[in-house]
């Protein structure tokens, strides 16, 4: 924060650290958040390197091994660590590849949303008068419709499919994003140092890049983690409802709904994608929560 602090409780060493490092220090102190971060990084690596890591191809069928239980089971097979599904596909390979679809695609979705959301949010925040009023009312309408419903509407228009899901979720998350960024910008604009900059004759671009941006990007990261967890949940929920990824795409929600038929016979085929999904969302939430409380703590100093 730009405000100068003469509080003597804090060592000068602490004050000399950059805000980013202070943030990291607070974040690090929260062990649970740190575990979340490691999990998050592991999943990201898995998502990018899935085809290399997975022992078999996603849709490779082993007809000699249908519905094998995990390898530690008596009838399991060492070749297939987590067993196979009803078409003889290696579950481990499918789950690893599923990381790319569910988690990786969700990151991509959240990134694109961030890009668009920040641009539009900043625009909304900087604009004044009638334009801003209309924009706000439009936002109000779309904000009252939750993201999943909006995504379902868009899918109703575009037809089911993974790519359509991504578009739908981007469009569905966008209003919330614009709204949050706009609020941040408006909040920042009203601060004294910005007014001082205006008076110094800085133009809009200057104020944005030098004044506002350095002060809000950390908050944007927090919003990013929130939209990421929504994106993961929505992609998988749509996959589960058979409106998103279509089989044989190895998206976790789709795998789950595909394997529902085996819920009694092979519960692990339903359990595993669910657990992974849970961890993916949990790690994102942990990172987001950790960041938020670290930001709060830094501010408190």
């Amino acid at each position, binding site marked *: 924060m730009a405000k100068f602090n003469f509080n003597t409780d804090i060592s000068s060493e602490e004050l000399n650290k950059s805000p980013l490092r202070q943030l990291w220090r607070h974040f690090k102190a929260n062990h649970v958040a740190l575990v979340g971060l490691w999990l998050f990084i592991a999943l990201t690596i898995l998502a990018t390197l899935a085809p290399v890591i997975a022992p078999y191809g996603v*849709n490779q*069928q082993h*007809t000699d091994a*249908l*519905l094998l239980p995990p390898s530690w089971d008596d009838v399991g097979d060492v070749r297939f660590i987590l067993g196979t599904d*009803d*078409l*003889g596909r290696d579950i481990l390979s499918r789950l690893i590849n599923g990381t790319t679809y569910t988690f990786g695609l969700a990151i991509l979705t959240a990134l694109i949303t961030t890009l668009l959301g920040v641009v539009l949010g900043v625009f909304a925040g900087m604009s004044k008068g009638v334009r801003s009023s209309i924009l706000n009312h439009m936002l109000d309408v779309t904000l009252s419709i939750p993201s999943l419903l909006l995504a379902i509407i868009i899918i109703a228009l575009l037809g089911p499919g993974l790519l359509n899901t991504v578009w739908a979720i981007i469009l569905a998350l966008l209003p919330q994003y614009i709204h949050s960024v706009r609020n941040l910008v408006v909040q920042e604009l009203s601060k004294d140092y910005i007014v001082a900059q205006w008076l110094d004759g800085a133009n809009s671009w200057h104020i944005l890049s030098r004044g506002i941006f350095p002060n809000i990007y950390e908050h944007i990261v927090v919003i990013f983690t929130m939209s990421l967890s929504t994106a993961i949940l929505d992609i998988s929920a749509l996959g589960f409802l058979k409106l998103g990824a*279509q*089989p*044989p795409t190895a998206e976790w929600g789709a795998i789950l709904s595909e394997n*529902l*038929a*085996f*819920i*009694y*016979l092979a519960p692990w085929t339903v359990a595993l994608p669910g657990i992974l999904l849970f961890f993916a969302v949990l790690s994102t939430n942990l990172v987001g929560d950790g960041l938020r409380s670290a930001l709060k703590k830094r501010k408190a100093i």
Partner: protein
Amino acid sequence: MSKFIFSIVILILTGCTEQALINQNNHGLIYCAEANPVSFNPQLTTLGSTIDLTSKQLYNRLISIDANTGEFLPELAHSWKISNNRKKITFELRQDVQFHQTDYFTPTRKLNADDVVFTFSRLFDAYNPYHFVSGGQYPYFQSIGLDQLIKSIIKESEYSVSFELFDAQSSFLANIATDFSVILSAEYAKSLEIDETLENLDNYPVGTGPYKFKDYKRDILIRYYKHDEYWKHPVELEQLVFDITPNSTTRIAKMLTHECDVTPHPNSSQLSILASRKDIKVLKETNLNIGYWAFNTQKAPFDDNRVRRALAHAIDIDKIMHAVYLDNGKRLESILPNTSWAYQAQVNMPNYNPELAKRLLRQAGLVEGFKMDLWAMPVARIYNPNARKMAELIQSDLNKIGITVNIVEYEWNTFIKKLEEHAHDTVLLGWSADTPDPDNFFSPLLSCAAALNGKNAANWCDPEFDLLLSKALDTIKIEERKEFYFQAQQMVIQELPLFPIAQGMRFQASSTNVENIEIKSFGGVSLAKARKL
């Protein structure tokens, strides 16, 4: 001890309601159905899922077929006589058959010849006010050409009806005994004409069967009450409820939680779960049916025999038998199942040979491969317990010879409707026999008439083939008929408008306290005698 405490806890949790529910339960049976009925009049459909819900529950036929001996049995007609030239058949009707009394109709008379005349004249007499009602399509009767066969129906006396035919067709009686040939009430039809609500004849049914219609909520339930004055035998159940549950996993789960008493076609992969439960029994019945892969022969490139043959050669049926039928089915060697008396194994049947498939495609000029749609039924049927999975297997097999497959799925009734418009490239479908007569596998599936009304999924019309079928029908001697059917089978496998894949088993799961549910090797289920202990 701990078990004892546990059961007490459960008793407390469920106890107070359990007793009463059991009382309520004894009077009613819940049958988990796979799909909404398309109509409550079986004349209008060939869908097994609809027939199961309607035909033997709400209606009766003039005669029926004994599933074991193949002989005809009296039903609404207590006897029948065939003239010497076999062109006139006279049915003598029972005089004690009462129609349903429902919220919307009160019969004033018992069944008589008028009802029979009305029922059949609706099918083929364009002057019958009901002929064009509810779409005016009678797919089964049109496919087998019954509308071309019957010259006239004559009311001989109050309880006697005769059918005059153009040709002496050997399968006529068998067709009269199918689940489609149910008898409707002429009096009810008259009363609807006065109200000008003709379509109610098919939506609010009145029949003579063991149960009468009470309520239908789409996607939720169908409720029947017992028909108190059922002519054949007393009906045990007060209520028969069909719980419409398209998802087969949900159906099984409902069996386990006792929300269903009976469920048809459990997914074969779940049979072991059901079999391991003491409170559930699984019935297994061989059934006259074929699951096939039909090619839309009017669409390129499927109009090319070489392409069809290539596709057939490209798929590994052993894998399908294992993964889809879980080894509970039989590979087909012809278009007829081997239990049919006209069956002949075909030497020409394509075997698994991807190399040959590629060669055939090259000959057809499709070196690059192509993209195609493969329609997979969304419901489990006897002939194909899991079309989606079969489609995925085929998808991966065809991928190896350079064909990209797009799997298409719709809700069952929409699926059938779009199929009838021939909007598909290829489709995984099948046929369960309605009579043991072999013609039942040819005319309804591959005749030109069936191509016209959309039931011929291959959209294949070959006059030569039709001629063969009518020759077979005009013959009485069974050995001669066989010859014709042998030729027909050879022709099908030669031309391959559809590729027969497998014959499935009919499974049915029910609670152990449910008795007397009749499933036969052909036709729909009958719950007339069902009871709960």
